[in-house]
């Protein structure tokens, strides 16, 4: 079976992701930014598919593109856009952002310069069909044995539960 993961698709998807990311920060209209962000997220889902991680790609689409971004749009639509488009930025946070972006860029450049020596020569080569099953085993463990990441997974879900409860408590006056 010939691989689908050709360089053409890689460059197409990463180009889309970068273009979307640039549009997110350059558009004045918040809705346009959100739509560009959806393009970026979908392109990243495509990149996951190219890495033979279909489960992560599917979850990326459901959670980010289908769930979170819809909520983003939902909130943005309620805001009066005419004012926000005209308004100038009033906080002076851009040096911090620039610093963070530079640090991230430095990280990327160093990884790129060191190249292959950072990674295992060939990562675990799993058949594509076992991908979802492997994720399940890593998260929950096999019969009678705790998985590699069970603890971290449960802690993360507890954190999300606390966040949900916090949101409910803040939103509701009387419980």
């Amino acid at each position, binding site marked *: 079976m010939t691989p689908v993961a050709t360089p053409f698709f890689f460059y197409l998807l990463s180009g889309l992701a970068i273009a979307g990311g640039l549009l997110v920060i350059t558009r004045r209209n918040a809705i346009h930014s959100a739509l560009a962000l959806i393009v970026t997220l979908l392109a990243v889902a495509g990149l996951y598919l190219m890495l033979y991680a279909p489960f992560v790609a599917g979850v990326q689409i459901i959670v980010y593109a*289908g769930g979170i971004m*819809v909520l983003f749009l939902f909130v943005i639509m309620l805001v009066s856009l005419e004012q926000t488009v005209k308004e100038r930025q009033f906080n002076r946070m851009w040096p911090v952002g620039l610093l963070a972006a530079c640090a991230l860029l430095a990280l990327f450049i160093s990884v790129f310069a060191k190249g292959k020596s950072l990674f295992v020569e060939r990562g675990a080569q799993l058949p594509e069909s076992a991908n979802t099953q492997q994720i399940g085993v890593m998260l929950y463990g096999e019969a009678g044995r705790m998985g590699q990441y069970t603890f971290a997974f449960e802690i993360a879900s507890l954190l999300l539960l606390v966040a949900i409860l916090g949101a409910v408590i803040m939103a509701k006056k009387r419980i």
Partner: protein
Amino acid sequence: MLDGFMSYLGSTLTPGQANNQLWALIYVFIIFAGVSLAVMAMNWIERKALAHFQVRLGPMRVGPHGLLQPIADAVKLLIKEDIIPAEADKFVFWIAPLIGLLASFTVYTVVPFGPSQAVSDMNIGILFMLGVSSLAVLGVVMAGWASNSHYPLIGALRSSAQMVSYEVAMGLAVVSAILMTSLHGTGLYGVSKLSDGTGTLSMIGIVQAQQEQHVWFLFKFFPLGLIAFGIFAIAMIAETNRAPFDLPEAESELTAGYHTEYSGLRWSLFMLAEYTAMIAVSSIAVTLWLGGWMRPFPNWLSGATWDFIFSLFPGLTFLALAAIAFVGVVRMPRHSYFRVQTIGLAAFGAVLALIGVLLLGIVIGAKFSHRDILSRTAEGLTNVYWFLFKVGVFMYLYIWYRATWPRYRFDQLMRVGWKVMLPISLGVLIVTAIVGVLLG
């Protein structure tokens, strides 16, 4: 060329698995044409059925019994003026219907019409379907916002709130069906040893799991499967914005909801997307709970004879439709005004009868000639027929609901979604898991 074609008919792999791009493309075209045709037919059936529910005749003018009405509607929509409001966000307004359409058509890449009759069999099939169909809400939201008008905006807000909240219950109901694929025991309460249970997310795999367990998941762990199916059946109506959950386009409150400002071709794209999505979610329900392409009672009424009898159904259905058309011909008024319509209806009945005879011929030929290609074709036809039959039942239910139930109020809708459906589906999921562990 012909050899390749013939060898493909006998293949047991989907084009995606066989990595056959040409056949995948042909499948895509067949599905695209078939779904568009089904949407037109659905349009006619819905108008006719609704009319008869309300003791009216419905469309009668264009063609015999209004059979050509969908075509007339399509032509009207195509040549209608395409208006973009002056204050609208042009680009978003333009792209919104396309996104809805794209999302609802992309889902069909994994719909299993038969064991090898699907564009592709992804191992994340059901996840892919849920993900892509959740993108459809983006089209609605964008349309409502880009119109820059009050009714569409309110419609879009309602729609996004509704679709996001019902997606949760829907997802949990789906998870409990996926859980059942890992049980491997046969029969209603059959569970094999827990340690060798691996489930599947692939759409074809889910149907094969039901085949292997000798039970539709609708009846597995009775009544747990039934409750999960009920949750899904309610949530899928809310997901596709159909009555009684059609608040995003409630005409008595919001004119037409999110597509108020749309006209002509763009409006028809929204309609196409809506009906396509309806067929898509119905096929998810059929795949997960109603045994996909399996014929009724494959175990109770097993054996070659019963297989043969059930494979006669596609042809007989078309013959029955032809008979209905011929009854219509006989009942047509004997007046020179109706001559063209009578001839047209008779021709339509003849075409249906011809298709029926052809299908019967293939099946009977496969039975008696023992040609491999012919029997594979007959098998494929039967599988696709049963899948489409079950989907068709759901489509009729959609019309029936619309004729029967009044529209919900928005707070009632939200209360049902979050306080009734979500706890029930969560409970069913937990109880299914517990029962699986206890019996395993």
